[in-house]
């Protein structure tokens, strides 16, 4: 029974990591209606730059804002050079453009920082939590728990920002209708900068969590692909949905891998999230918390 809990909790916390990455997607989508396929690459770029800056000698607490600033620049440049020229184009076109963007960001990341795998020390060990291990005989990684806490805090903060502040309202207006938002005086450019900055911060945090866990390497980008099923299950526009969906995906993936994996030689986690998403689409295309899509004829 203990083992089951370990696997479950491990999966849930792993899922929190997915949610963190998926959060970045949701933010961009909420504000600009664009699915940023390059978000995974940006996560990678963010944490790689962070580690790179530290290697160059910058202190942890200096490298952090510098990286955030860098991500803001990346976001603004993306908005100007990629999204703005394609305003009004079909959803598919925008998606393909962000695929191209993903390639660019990945390539630039490797050009700038090289391909060496790096370690990221956050001061939190990827080891079982002491008292849980001793008292309940359950092994749960401290790092995973920390990630869970961080994610929880981020979600709470974001939810508050969205619903309570003027900026948040502006964000929602922009997401709904750019032209209308402009016409009521919402500073579109500033809002978009805020959106991309936030997404950049989220990307950095997600990258840091992942990087501390598995090393800062290119495979991180593949992890971000997993965020797509999370978005589908949770609903593209829902922050809580993304969290719940991440938990579901993480848990399902881990359980399947541990319990079914041995029968088929492993690797189930490579495709299970996607198949899950497809099954969800059959039953509930708008996701758990998403908005129902209505088409008028």
């Amino acid at each position, binding site marked *: 029974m203990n083992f089951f809990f370990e696997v479950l909790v491990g999966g849930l916390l792993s899922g929190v990591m997915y949610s963190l990455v998926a959060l970045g997607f949701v933010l961009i989508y909420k504000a600009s209606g664009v699915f940023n396929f390059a978000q995974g690459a940006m996560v990678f770029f963010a944490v790689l730059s962070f580690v790179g800056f530290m290697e160059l000698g910058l202190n942890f607490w200096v490298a952090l804002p510098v990286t955030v600033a860098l991500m803001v620049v990346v976001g603004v440049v993306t908005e100007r050079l990629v999204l703005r020229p394609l305003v009004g184009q079909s959803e598919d076109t925008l998606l*393909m453009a962000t695929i191209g*963007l993903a*390639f*660019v960001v990945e*390539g630039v990341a490797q050009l700038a920082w090289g391909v060496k795998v790096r370690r990221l020390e956050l001061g939190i060990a990827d080891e079982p939590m002491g008292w849980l291990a001793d008292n309940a005989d359950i092994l749960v990684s401290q790092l995973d728990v920390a990630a869970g806490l961080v994610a929880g805090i981020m979600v709470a903060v974001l939810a508050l920002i969205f619903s309570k502040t003027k900026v948040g309202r502006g964000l929602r207006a922009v997401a709904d209708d750019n032209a209308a938002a402009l016409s009521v005086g919402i500073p579109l450019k500033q809002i978009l900068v805020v959106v991309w900055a936030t997404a950049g911060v989220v990307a950095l945090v997600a990258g840091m969590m992942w990087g501390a866990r598995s090393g800062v390497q290119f495979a991180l980008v593949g992890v971000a692909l997993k965020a797509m099923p999370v978005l589908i299950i949770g609903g593209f526009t829902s922050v809580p949905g993304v969290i719940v969906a991440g938990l579901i995906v993480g848990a399902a993936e881990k359980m399947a891998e541990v319990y079914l994996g041995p029968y088929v030689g492993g690797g189930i986690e*490579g495709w299970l999230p*996607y198949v899950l998403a497809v099954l969800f689409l059959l039953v509930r295309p708008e996701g758990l918390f998403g908005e129902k899509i209505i*088409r008028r004829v």
Partner: protein
Amino acid sequence: MFYRESGQYSTSYGQDRQLLQLRQDRVGMVVLLAIGLVGIPFAASDYWLSAILIPWLVLALVALGQNILMGYAGQLSLGSAGFMAAGAFACYNLILRVPGIPFVAAVLISGLIAAVVGILFGLPSLRIRGLYLAVATLASQFFIVWALDKFGWFKNYDSSGIINAQAIVVFGHTMGTPAEKYLVVFAIVAVLALLAANMAAGSVGRGWMAVRDMDVAAEAMGLSLLRTKLQAFAISSFYCGVGGALYLFAYLQTAEPTGFNIELSFRILFMVIIGGLGTILGAFLGSAFILLLPVFLNIFFHAIFGAAVDATITSALEQVIFGVLIIVFLIYEPLGLARLWQITKERLRLWPFKY
């Protein structure tokens, strides 16, 4: 003044329907086919045949399949490599287990098998579009490659996990040399391309485009969305499967399932975007472009930086350039190289006049 169409007009609907309307175009196509069929096998070097022309034709075929799904039917797919794998491994197993099966028959049956797989994964995807569909195709991509890898039967329980393509035997004659392999590929690709062009120009293509552009109106006209989309999935997967079989037998020779990965799917996607969505020509132009660009970049870098260029740097640069090209094409010429070619032809028709 050479590319004039004056004096050429259709006198029947049959004539009006021809794929190549201008006599100059038809002559050009005949010349091209003659060069392809006769000239190249004799004149081209083995390197050119094996490393450039064969993969160009094979990947163009896969790009055609992708184009049918994306350009004509409007379904975004990121799973073409998965269907290639299905076709490749199906062909390998057919030739392995069915003694004496003709190569071309094996290839076609592999295409059919890939089509069935395509229908299976297409069924749940029928009511979704855009990004949702992309994720569903990722499901097919990852699952197919995983299944082919994990279940040793597909690889004939080879301990290394790699399969070796058997020889291509046509009418008892082993097509071993690059020139012979090229001829087999050329023949199959040319025929399938013609069939695709016919479908695209006829009722089938109109059905696809109708469902792509305005599915509500298409339904109101009596088109079955289910049947039309499934058909597009099936035919597209067939082409990808045949392409995959040829990719293995005529090009790679050895392969493992993970070689048909998502990177390959992205390459195919880029071929279609750069080449031109919704055109037959686009598949060939895009395939050539994506294949030749790394070659040119290599030459370019060596010229500038000398011989000692780190491979990781060139590949990263390549990635950046590909990404930038995709974005540039999507912004400025979403209909790709095929459209640029069309514009060039239109200018030629008027030359030396401007309009």
